[in-house]
Structure formats: C-alpha cells, structure tokens
C-alpha cells in the first residue's frame, strides 16, 4: 500500500483514512493480519507513536482488533465494512458537491458533467 501524506492535517487522521480506504478497496481483506506498528510506521515514514494512535482509533471504531498474542487483524464484520464504505463514499461526494456549490455549479449541471466525463473515459 502506498502512503500519501499531506502536511496540514494531523498525521494520525490521515493514516486512519488511508487504512479505511485500504479496507474499502480490498487491499486489506476482512480477517487479514496487519503488519506490526513499527513495520507500518517504517513503510509510511511516520513515528511509531503516530501509527499506534491511528491503530487505537481504528480499534475504537471496531475496524481493527488486537489479539494479545498474535497481532492485529482487520475486522471480519462485513456489515461494519459495508457501513464504512457507505460513510466514506458519502463523505467524498459531499466534499465534491460542496466544492461545486462554491463554484456556483448547480446539481443538474454537475450531473451532466459527470455523465459527459464518464462517457469520455469509456472511449
């Protein structure tokens, strides 16, 4: 998994979002074992403390669980992953619509643009 970190948002939040995106897109499959905090930190070039905080956050939401002896795993709760997926998609589209709104583009025009661009992409 490639880590893309920008600089104005707390690092741990970005790590949480990227692992969430990994779960939704299937890079991390339900029940998968996660690498150790230190290995993840090295891959992302962040402090292990920050990666630990991201893990704690994901554990709190139930997306990741820790097994005392064998490490950390992605949840097998498909319903929870489905909910996360819905949340994530909603958030991305909401941000996009807010941006269009800021530009003064109404919903109808936005949708016509989406159709035009996706048609072009198919070609």
């Amino acid at each position, binding site marked *: 998994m490639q880590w893309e*970190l920008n*600089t*104005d*948002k*707390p*690092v*741990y*939040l970005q790590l949480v979002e990227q692992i969430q995106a990994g779960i939704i897109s299937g890079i991390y499959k339900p029940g998968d074992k996660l690498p150790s905090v*230190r290995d993840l*930190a*090295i891959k*992302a*070039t*962040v*402090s*292990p*403390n*920050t990666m630990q*905080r991201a893990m704690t956050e994901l554990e709190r939401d139930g997306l990741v669980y820790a097994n005392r002896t064998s490490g950390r795993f992605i949840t097998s709760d498909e319903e929870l992953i489905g909910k996360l997926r819905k949340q994530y998609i909603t958030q991305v589209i909401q941000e996009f619509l807010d941006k269009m709104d800021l530009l003064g583009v109404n919903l109808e025009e936005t949708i016509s643009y989406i159709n035009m661009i996706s048609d072009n992409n198919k070609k």
Partner: protein
Amino acid sequence: MSVILECRSLTKKYGSTTALSDLNLSLERGRIVGLLGPNGSGKTTLIKLINGLLVPSSGTIKINGFEPGVESKKIVSYLPEKTYLPDWMKVSDAINFFKDFFADFDEKKAYEMLDHLHLDSSKRLKALSKGTKEKVQLILVMSRKADLYCLDEPIGGVDPAARDYILNTIITNYNENACVIISTHLIADIENVLDEVIFIKEGYLQLHASVDEIREKEGKSIDSLFREVFRC
C-alpha cells in the same frame, strides 16, 4: 512516561553574545522530537550542552538525573554536525572504535545495517561519498542502545533517497524507552516523523508542542508555522 532530559533556566553565553537564554525544557522517553530553528538560533549549542561539550553559563541540565559527564555519556548517543572520525579509518576500524568506547554498542546490528547497504567494511572512510559517510555515521550512532539520541542535522546535504534511508534507520532502531532529538531546518522533509517539535528563536524557547496538536489547532503544517514564526 519518565523524563529523560530536563533543562532549568539553562543559559549559555559566548562573551557578550547569549546563545541560549533561560531555557526550560523537559523531554520524555519514547518520543521523536524535532529541534527546529533558523541558523544561529541555538540548536547546536543546546545539543553540545547535553553532550557536555559546552558548560552552561547558568542553569542546570540533567539527563536521566545526571549532569553531563561520564554517567550521562553512557546513555546519550550523539551524531555531531561534522564528522570526527579520521579519514584513514576503515569502516571496520570505526566500528571497533565504537565497540571500545560504548558498552551499549551492538556490533552485530551495525554490520547488518552495513550489509543491507552493500557496504564493504574494509573500505576507508576517505573513499566514501559524502552521503555514504553520513549513513555510516548514523549507523554507528543508532547501533547503540542509548536512552537519548542527539542527531545534529542528520539529513543536511543528502539526496531524497538517502534522506528516506536515514529517517527509516531512525524509526527502525529507536526503542520505546529512548528519546530521539533531531535538529534540522529542513522541516518539511521530516515533520511526519516527529511526535513533538521545539522551536528556538534567538536563544529563546518559542514553542514546544506535539505535531498533531499543532496541525489540529492551527490547521497548517509545521513547515508553514515555522515560516510564520521565523519570517525575516
């Protein structure tokens, strides 16, 4: 969490110039701390005080309760800005040198890291490029099992790939019981690695806060905040 470094009213004067002024600072184990400030702000002075290379004009400095001296040097691993290893040494000589000096030096670990770089330890330091020499020095310093690592400009003057190597070496080798201080003015390159930052301006402590706290509160990167605080 326990305190590893404690400075109280620490002041250092060079003649009439004050390099550090009434600095109060407390650092905990398990943290990676950026010591940030423009050139001449007092970063290197602080690091030299921690390592006993300078003596405070007033105030105190304690490392795990010890004043800088034999006891503190056993637990502080120091990477100076400039190399002190003589050119004629082979890499293996430098390793033996560290083995003789420091009881906590892990020779096996050092050789493993050199192997990883495909570096032939029979080479003389003089034959190494600047970037490789810096990597060797960092390997030596990080192969100690110290309680406090003081890295003075570890990423100055190396290419981005070498910089990533250096940062990864730091993350890989530090342990939860140790604190790492990294002094630099190349903030954008390292801010994701840091837990906390210290800003020093003209010898005064300007700010000591956690990186995520700053990003949450200010909504900007440490680099942008630095540019604001230190605008010329």
